[in-house]
């Protein structure tokens, strides 16, 4: 189990050799968006393993999921901000998020899951 946020050292049991890269939540190497992944792969892996139907997941799959989750966070934050902007507020509130979930089709899977 990860001892501290962002510093998990998972045991690599599956995938084509190699170890899962240590998460590096530091500055990007070059230009915006160049950082490979900020979310710790160990936590993402724990989520993946929580699915009883999943047997194994390769380290590349975990990485892509982590990166996708980051993109998702960016996307939903921006969509929620549009609602806040309409209210001329500078702080994103929970209701902005609920509005975004209702308004955007792709977020339909979230309905009922955040309470």
């Amino acid at each position, binding site marked *: *189990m990860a001892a501290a*946020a*962002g510093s998990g050292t998972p045991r690599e049991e599956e*995938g084509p050799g*190699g170890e899962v*890269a240590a998460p590096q*939540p530091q500055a990007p190497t070059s230009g915006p*968006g*160049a950082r*490979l*992944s*900020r*979310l*710790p792969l160990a*936590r*993402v892996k*724990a*989520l*993946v393993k*929580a*699915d009883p*139907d*999943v*047997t*194994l*997941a*390769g380290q*590349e*799959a975990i*990485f*892509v*999921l982590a*990166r*996708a*989750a*980051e*993109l*998702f*966070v*960016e*996307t*939903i*934050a*921006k969509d*929620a*901000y549009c609602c*806040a902007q309409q209210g001329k507020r*500078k*702080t*994103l*509130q*929970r209701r*902005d*998020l609920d509005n975004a979930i209702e308004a955007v*089709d*792709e977020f339909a*899977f*979230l309905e009922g*899951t*955040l309470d």
Partner: protein
Amino acid sequence: MAERPEDLNLPNAVITRIIKEALPDGVNISKEARSAISRAASVFVLYATSCANNFAMKGKRKTLNASDVLSAMEEMEFQRFITPLKEALEAYRREQKGKKEASEQKKKDKDKKTDSEEQDRSREEENDEDEERLEEEEQNEEEEVDN
């Protein structure tokens, strides 16, 4: 440890950082909104995993791979993620390859140093292997004779 999969949250600090960088300067986020986004991200991963797993099972594979995840994004109508994800994956593969080569190089250097010590040991091993091969050849000959 966690009771439900949704309880496996991603670190708050990282989530907050991602949100702040996505939004214009000066915009804040309430604690409730932040934790809701964090939970949404976990749900997203779980949902994507389940979709990806379907693709893996269709391919009669037991291991989820990167393309399963990309197919899942398409299925979930997050096509806009696919291109940036592919780029990230290529960068990740290059990095992994670089790391592997670096560690192999280190290993080679290390081996060179200890080579002289191991030479005797490896000669013995080679002899053992030769003996095994001889035994196999003898067995083969016997089989041929029978035929």
